[in-house]
Every structure is written in C-alpha cells, then in structure tokens.
C-alpha cells in the first residue's frame, strides 16, 4: 500500500516551537541590557528563523510542485502558493489574493492554522511567539518562490487574530 505517512499536528508544533527556542537562545550577539543591543539581538533571531523558513520553503515546494510547469508570470506562481502550498502546509487554501498588477501581492488567511494555539492572548510571550511563527512562515513563502524562480521580499501582519495578511513584493 502506497501510504502517505502522517504525524500528529501537535508533534510538528512542538518541534517548531522548540526550533524557535533554540534560535532565541543560541549564542551570538551580546544580549546586553540596553535597548540597542536587545533590538539587534531580536533582529538576529528574526533573521535566523526566517532563514530556517527559507530553507524549508525552498525544499518543500520541490515536493509540492511536480505536475506541470507553472510559467514565468508571478501571478501564476503566487496562485500556486495560495492553493497548493497553503494546502500542503496549513491544510487549507489561502482565503484571498489581491494584487496591484505591478509586482505586489497580498495573501490573506482569516484563520491562520499556526496561530490557533495562541488564541487571543496578548501577553509578551505570546506576541513574541506569534512573531516567530510569522517570520518562519514568511521565510517559507520566500524560499518556495525563490525555487520557482521568483525573487521576493515577504512580510506579514496580524489583522485580527487568527487572521494574517502576507505581503509579497517581487524584486
């Protein structure tokens, strides 16, 4: 039987949170008391998590895109991301795609799977965790698009928990 192996979602989440903890606590940066180096440290952690996401996205899309050529037009690639990649990663498709037809795309997900555990908590730890999750997700999108041949900048905003809006800017 050609089985598709599956793992409990909670196992993946535990692994993801642990990866974030390692990214936060890994040596590097002086983690000093004053605001400047704390901010630098925060950016370093953000960069690390985004880079992890990039690697995952780059590789994952190889598995997700195997059937046909997607063409060179960014819109086709972004549509693929919204449907096929979203389904593979988040078990649902993105809800809405907007574009200005000049290289900017906004992908909306009103119920972002990876944020659901955070509920509506606004404490510092939850906010930090949400940020890690989004940085990771942005990295994944950027990595996937890069492997499909599109160079982009990706950032995310929480609209109203658990809704997220991802902005993709084609370079």
């Amino acid at each position, binding site marked *: 039987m050609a089985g598709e192996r599956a793992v409990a979602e909670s196992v993946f989440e535990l692994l993801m949170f642990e990866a974030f903890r390692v990214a936060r606590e890994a040596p590097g940066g002086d983690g000093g008391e004053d605001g400047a180096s704390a901010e630098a440290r925060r950016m370093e952690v953000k960069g690390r998590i985004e880079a992890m996401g990039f*690697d995952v996205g*780059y*590789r*994952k899309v190889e598995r997700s895109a195997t*059937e046909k*050529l997607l*063409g060179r037009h960014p819109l086709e690639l972004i549509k693929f991301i919204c449907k096929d990649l979203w389904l593979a990663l988040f078990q649902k498709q993105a809800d809405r795609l907007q574009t200005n037809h000049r290289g900017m795309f906004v992908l909306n997900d009103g119920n972002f799977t990876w944020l659901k555990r955070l509920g509506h908590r606004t404490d510092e730890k939850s906010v930090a965790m949400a940020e890690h999750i989004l940085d990771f997700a942005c990295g994944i999108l950027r990595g996937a698009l890069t492997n*499909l041949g599109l160079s982009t900048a990706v950032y995310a905003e929480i609209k109203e928990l658990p809704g997220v809006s991802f902005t993709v800017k084609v370079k």
Partner: protein
Amino acid sequence: RRRADMFVIVGRSEPLYELELSGGSGASASGNLDQFIIHSALDMVDTALLQHTSLFLRTVDSFGEKFVSAYVTPSHVKFMLLHERNKNEDTIKAFFQEVQELFVKITLNPFYTYDTAITSKGFDDRVRALANRYLA
C-alpha cells in the same frame, strides 16, 4: 544494445549530476564529446520551454546520430539524456519521471545542500538502477 549514452541533471548554475551509460571503453574521448553535446543543447531546452507546458520536452536537439531528450522540473532543473535513437519516448519519459521522484526526495533531505552537486551514493545507485530498468 544500449539505448542511451549519458544522463545529466543541470541545476540553476551548474551540473548537479552526471551518469555515463555508454560503458567503459573509450570513455574519456567520447565522454567529453557527450558532455559537450548535452551542454550545447541547453539553449534548445529554453526554446522548447516556450512551447510546452508539460515537463517532458521530448527531443530538443540532435548531433549526427545522437539525440538529446529533456525534461524540466517546475523548479527549472533540467534532466538531459543523450541517446542514439529517436524512439520510445514513453520509456524515456518514464525514466525522467522516476528520476524526478528521486530528485524531490534528495531535495527534501536537509543534509543535501540544494543547487549543489549531488554526491550521495544512494542517489547514484538508484539512478543507475532506473537506467538499467528503462534504458538498457
């Protein structure tokens, strides 16, 4: 009677994998020519891409009695096969599809740096086995 001479996987910036299928004798002399023919055909792959939406591009170029068939992944990695007869496209396509599955698996492997030469013996063994099954 062998049906194929050489199989190459070409990545974004460099060849990722090469398999000589034509046997040991006279390898270095004809080996370089085989590589040359395949790399010359790369431009033809780009041309063929403009006309196809399928991954299998069939024969993209020829050089004397030799033909180059190609297949491109959605990630724009090119599989190129140098072979002697312009026949049995289904067999060639099946070979490419099976190699694509191996390629996907190795790309998913975090111990493989993507877009670099594939040095895994496991990968090589499996591609050779596919070549024996489909192209021998």
